[in-house]
């Protein structure tokens, strides 16, 4: 019952969303294959319960979040970004040692052809979300020392507790960050670290209350990681 109401709401939002071009084949693909797991319009009720109900990250601000070339590539070869899926609690189980990912509960992401991936990426990039979601121009673009960045990421702020800066090392409840620079826009990374809940209400990433130089350093480090670790 709840799900059908959600589907109707999503459907209505879809129809009334001005950003979706009716003449783009990506719109049809999005409607047929994406909206059962991803919200493409801002949900009216952004409660914690809703976070538990959703099956994948929200896409209504995809155009302010992703880099288009990455989207086109990933939609053709979708590799898992969140090692423990979403929401991680539903996909972990106890073991003799630490908790492990219960692979049997995770499903593979839809895979698209090149033409379809390009069409869908076009439509997604038009979904910019609320104007104040991302601080445009916030990241100043300074180069960061990778050793300083790593110390900050691993030791001083403990980001590695939840995120992997290189494949297989670090935490699993957050998205991997070794492809984040390729995947995400710099200002999105900055804005998300600054206040994760402002972008994704109730998300399980803490707000670290970082000072401006630290936000710049961390954003720069994550962007550069993609070049050094993601290949």
């Amino acid at each position, binding site marked *: 019952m709840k799900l059908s109401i959600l589907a109707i709401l999503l459907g209505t939002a879809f129809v009334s969303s001005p950003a979706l071009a009716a003449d783009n084949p990506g719109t049809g693909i999005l409607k047929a294959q994406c909206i059962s797991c991803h919200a493409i319009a801002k949900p009216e009720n952004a409660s914690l319960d809703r976070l538990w109900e959703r099956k994948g990250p929200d896409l209504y601000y995809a155009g302010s979040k992703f880099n288009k070339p990455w989207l086109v590539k990933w939609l053709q070869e979708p590799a898992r970004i969140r090692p423990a899926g979403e929401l991680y*609690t539903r996909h*972990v189980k106890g073991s003799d040692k630490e*908790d492990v*990912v219960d692979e049997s509960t995770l499903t593979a992401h839809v895979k698209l052809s090149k033409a379809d991936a390009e069409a869908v990426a076009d439509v997604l990039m038009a979904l910019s979300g609320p104007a104040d979601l991302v601080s445009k121009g916030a990241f100043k673009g300074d180069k960061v020392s990778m050793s300083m960045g790593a110390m900050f990421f691993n030791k001083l702020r403990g980001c590695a507790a939840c995120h992997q800066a290189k494949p297989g090392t670090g935490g699993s*409840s957050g998205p991997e960050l070794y492809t984040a620079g390729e995947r995400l826009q710099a200002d999105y990374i900055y804005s998300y670290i600054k206040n994760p809940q402002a972008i994704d209400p109730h998300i399980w990433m*803490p707000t670290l*209350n970082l000072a401006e130089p630290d936000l710049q350093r961390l954003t720069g480090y994550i962007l550069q990681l993609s070049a050094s670790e993601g290949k």
Partner: protein
Amino acid sequence: MKMNFRQRMPALLQAGLLVASGFLFSMPASADEPYTQNALRNYNTYCVQCHGINRNGKGINSRDMSVQPRDHSDAKGMGDIPNEEIFHVIKDGGLAGNKSVLMPAWGNVMNDDEIKELGAYLRFVCKCGSGQ
């Protein structure tokens, strides 16, 4: 001081009323579960990633952590921590309480009432009293 039965009854009743009124305000799941469903939901959203699905400090993230998360099922370890300290560390993070930086501050994610409810849930998990 040895109290007779008559003297003890009012004290017991008083304690019972105190506990009962605490229950009323925090709306427990049932009489057997002295915590709120909201606290359970918050634990499963924010704490399980490090403190584990079995609340034993063996969360999915713990494998590579330099300081291991606290075992919330450890009655002795948890019993030694007063409620104020539990509240403070959840709200302001490990660093603020001279503990590990790997315990982040959750004060922007949960409000004070929710953090207090989470503290009560932790007392239920560790079976280590009220921390008073």
